[in-house]
């Protein structure tokens, strides 16, 4: 893992922990957040953004399945040309 992937993994894991915390606290209180911005609301929002952004660094590259699909199509095209 390079440093980008490590930071992506770290952000993702922190995001999961924060979101899980918000869901558990929400389950105990009957709601996440309140009439003011409480800790669990902050945790939910930050965790949400971390989970959306983190895996982009962690798994950043185009998945192999898509690359393969494009390569196959390109090869077919080359074959048709020749």
């Amino acid at each position: 893992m390079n440093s980008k992937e490590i930071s992506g993994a770290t952000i993702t894991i922190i995001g999961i922990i924060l979101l899980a915390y918000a869901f558990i606290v929400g389950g105990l209180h009957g709601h996440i957040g309140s009439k003011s911005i409480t800790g669990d609301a902050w945790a939910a929002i930050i965790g949400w953004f971390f989970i959306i952004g983190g895996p982009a660094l962690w798994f950043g590259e185009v998945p192999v399945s898509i690359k393969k699909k494009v390569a196959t199509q390109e090869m077919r095209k080359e074959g048709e040309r020749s």
Partner: protein
Amino acid sequence: MSFYAIEILIIVFVIYGLAYVYYGRRLLQNKIVKADPNRPTPAYTKFDGVDYVPANKYVLYGHHFASIAGAGPIIGPAIAMSYGWALPLIWVLFGNVFIGAVHDYLALMSSVRYGGISIMSVSENVMGKSARYISLAYVYFALLLVFAAFVSVASILFAKIPSAATVALIFMPLALLFGILTYRVGISLRLGTIIAVIIIVLGFIYAYKIPFLLGYNPSTGAGNIWSAYHYWIIVLSIYAILAASLPVWYLLQPRDYLNAYVLWFFVFFAAFGSLVLADHKLIGTAYTSFAPRMAAFANQPTYFWPAIPLIIACGALSGFHSLVGSGTSSKQLSNELDALLVGYGGMLTEGAVSSMAVILPISLAWTAPELYKLGVLKPGKTMLSLSPLDRFLVGYGYMSGEVIHRFGGSFSTGFHVFKLFAAIALASFVLTTLDTATRLARFSWQEMFDWLSTRSPTLYKIITNRWFASFLVVLIGGGMAYPVVRLGKSLAPAYKILWPAFAGVNQLLAALALLTAALWVYAILKVRGGENWLIQVPAWFLWVTVTAGLIWWTVDVLPKLSVSVQKVGAGSIVIVSLALDFLLIYYFVRGLRRASKITQFPG
């Protein structure tokens, strides 16, 4: 004459089924566009791993459908119920089949044939360079307004119905997980879908019990709703930048694919409701008046023609769809044959949302005794006494509550659960449209500056950087949505100063996109005879209708707007739009004359 729900359901299915096979496949796909499964699509030829990425056709259908279905297919028909249910239904059925779905399909396919560029850039090939840049600037502005409206609607929805916010909190990470499972881990689409659908159902149950409050509690009234609104504007703006800049395979494709299941369930449950309540008559009035007075049009007599496209957009036809088709969808289309399901089928599905999930339930609930007992309707009042949003929520809730009651459950519980579900479905539509609109505005921005790419490559790179371009959209659009101003007697988000003009801007875009596509069919595809007229006539009908609608709005409605700042804001936009309308029609006619000289076929 009275109708049963089942009769309407059969009519809708038969018309859409025949349209898909005969009008869509045989005419548009096989005879006009001559779609070729062996022709490489831009997703392969211009693959970049970010915007140009081939997608499974069902995934792309989910994306396209969820993106084009903003609040329009719901709120528009709910407003149009002032005509009774018959006229809106006729417009949704026939406008959709002959204009809207044709418009969407041709916008998608013309873009695919030109390497995935927007329909505005396609216009350069048939109308010239000036038409292209004028259209791009116009569309960019329209998309800023769309962003402002949708971020505002989503924020108000989340502040007022916080359980919908909890669903969003669960749904986005789930979509990422789904994408990683299918693209990275390599599990099958079917297994991934089953896992995700189970989590969505559990998430919905959790959200029903646990709302996400951000500074306001609607059930107790504690806190300040405008504070919550502002918090949500900020949160959703950051979300939009992320979602619009990250690669499509990462969030957009899996999210929209899963979203489509939620939305399909939403439509199918409505259809199922019509089957279960087959013996229920539509108690709503079929026809009230050809020109009822509507609050959305300053309480002026609103003539069905030419006003209807300004009222019902997405359910029948909408200019925004041409931007999605020629924006995100054309860059992900894996095979030309998939375009029928994505472009034509996606639009028919949206018509099904309007007809089966909005018009039908509202007509069933019109003066239902249960709604008086629950206190939803006041004595002597009909569904028309509710706001358009509440007409939809109550109508859907009523229909579902009756279905639950038929199976031995409580009407009241079914009503409340499905009313919430309808709100969540609406939030799903809105949120998807929000980040797609941001991405589309980014594309327009990038295309607007393509002339810089050879003159100053470095500057071009900076200006068209995807993060910067998305940020700019959010900054301007969010800037229109964030401030709360006093409009007349009530407070409203600032973008509402311009909003009365949006319907006209959007539908003028539809007319111009369809004219561009019609010119492409005539000049480039060289289609002649009856098949050509089947495209030209709806295109001209739409242009005449929308132009007449804009003139009617300027003459009848504009002077009667009660807020003077709206008169200036919205009025100037409509007048500029009309000027642009005639300028672009000049380019169109010029393009038509030159058509015989155009011989090259794009690669």
